[in-house]
């Protein structure tokens, strides 16, 4: 295996502040996030507003992590003013790049001197497209439907022809390595618009593809449930087992999908891929490690995994379940009250369900992202205790500061 010369970077998704922190703690080189309604996750993620740009950029830069702003929906005339407001604020706060697909965004970014990354929504699938977009940007995210050979051809031709981006630096290439796939060529799906006027291209996708369908005989009305069940719902992309081949294609940035997922997903996916990249660079990428990573990735949100189109598979890797196949499930139990810093103890109010000493719990909060721990020892209403239930106040040793509003979840096996 040849080692890549320049270090490949890892880009993690963040749909909320706790995810930003989780991504940074897990070792992301950069994060991407969207604000207001001009990004592809307006329906599903809690959403940041313009006012949050400052804090996200500040947190990232304090840790030497880059912050990219996603503005990749189709744009209408009535959006242009908002776009301008967002971009002005982003520039003011020192955003590192904007991820865009519409030329109106390229134009405004160029006028403001903000670097542009061309979104996967532009479906870049060939070298000529890369050359074209090099006039406006320094990095392109390729379509998710290419093969390793196609990607390697693009990256090697960029080097051979010395294709440079608008900044004068060699054009960089980014591809997705993990997360949800679209049943249509990314960004070109109209199912949701067709069925419910909900435009996927405005981030309002209702995910018709993730449901089971029947076919009906138009003459007799007889219905068949399609035996493959979720025939339009692709499994999630997971390249942890073939990441050496991914890196060998010569790409510069590896991107994880999931701005609508939780901090646990962001932390686990980012840290697994970070470790895998380091192992490949150190020449210690072994099957045993792959198994461990795969188990960890399986524990958080997923629809089952396949290696996507990269290895040249035909379509047909459809999921067999309606939602996540994650092996672990998190159940909300308690909210954070305060932290006793001197003794390293956090106080929580149990709002629902119960906890037992020895339970594995997950703490999610803006300041620390995601932290997993074992409940040991457990103090209930000031007394050592084995169990705690709704209404109880518990105190437990926690390594990071607990803030009011932090959430404590119990981790169980998904089918327990």
């Amino acid at each position, binding site marked *: 295996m040849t080692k890549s010369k320049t270090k490949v970077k890892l880009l993690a998704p963040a749909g909320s502040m706790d995810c930003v922190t989780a991504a940074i703690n897990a070792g992301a080189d950069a994060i991407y996030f969207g604000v207001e309604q001009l990004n592809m996750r307006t329906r599903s993620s809690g959403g940041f507003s313009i006012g949050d740009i400052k804090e996200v950029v500040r947190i990232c830069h304090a840790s030497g992590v880059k912050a990219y702003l996603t503005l990749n929906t189709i744009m209408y005339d009535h*959006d242009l*003013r908002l776009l301008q407001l967002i971009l002005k604020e982003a520039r003011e706060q020192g955003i590192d790049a904007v991820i865009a697909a519409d030329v109106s965004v390229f134009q405004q970014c160029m006028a403001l001197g903000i670097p542009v990354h061309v979104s996967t929504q532009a479906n870049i699938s060939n070298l000529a497209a890369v050359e074209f977009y090099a006039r406006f940007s320094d990095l392109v995210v390729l379509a998710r439907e290419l093969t390793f050979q196609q990607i390697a051809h693009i990256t090697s031709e960029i080097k051979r022809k010395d294709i440079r981006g608008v900044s004068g630096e060699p054009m960089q290439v980014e591809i997705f390595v993990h997360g949800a796939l679209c049943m249509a060529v990314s960004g070109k799906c109209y199912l949701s618009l067709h069925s419910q006027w909900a435009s996927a291209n405005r*981030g309002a996708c209702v995910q018709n593809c993730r449901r089971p369908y029947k076919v009906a005989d138009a003459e007799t009305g007889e219905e068949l449930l399609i035996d493959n069940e979720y025939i339009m719902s692709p499994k999630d992309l997971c390249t942890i087992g073939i990441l050496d081949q991914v890196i060998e294609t010569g790409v510069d940035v590896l991107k994880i999908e999931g701005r609508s997922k939780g901090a646990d997903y962001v932390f686990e996916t980012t840290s697994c891929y970070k470790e895998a990249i380091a192992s490949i660079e150190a020449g210690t990428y072994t099957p045993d490690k792959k198994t461990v990573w795969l188990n960890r990735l399986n524990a958080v949100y997923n629809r089952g995994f396949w290696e996507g189109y990269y290895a040249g598979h035909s379509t047909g890797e459809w999921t067999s379940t309606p939602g996540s196949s994650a092996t672990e499930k998190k159940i909300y139990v308690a909210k954070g009250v305060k932290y006793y810093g001197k003794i390293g103890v956090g106080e929580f109010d149990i709002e629902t369900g119960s906890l037992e000493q020895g339970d594995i719990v997950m703490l999610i909060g803006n300041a620390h992202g995601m932290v997993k721990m074992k409940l040991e020892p457990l103090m209930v209403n000031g007394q050592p205790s084995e169990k705690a239930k709704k209404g109880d106040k518990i105190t437990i040793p926690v390594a990071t500061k607990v803030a009011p509003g932090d959430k404590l979840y119990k981790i169980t096996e998904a089918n327990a």
Partner: protein
Amino acid sequence: MPKLIQYRDKCIGCGICHQLQPAWWRMSKRDGKATLVKGEKKNQTYVREIPLIEEELIRRVVRDCPVHIIKWV
């Protein structure tokens, strides 16, 4: 008279309401969201009475807003 209600802060600015009935909805140049024309504003909620004769259109706009922030009572 029925009342049309828009919970505006969650609007994604897709413009469908405006296309269905431009007389009721204006796309704001300021923040790209739809605004209920002549709506009475309480925080981010806009309310406006619409004659019952328009029921079909009301139902349509309530049904078609992709993020379901338009209601009627």
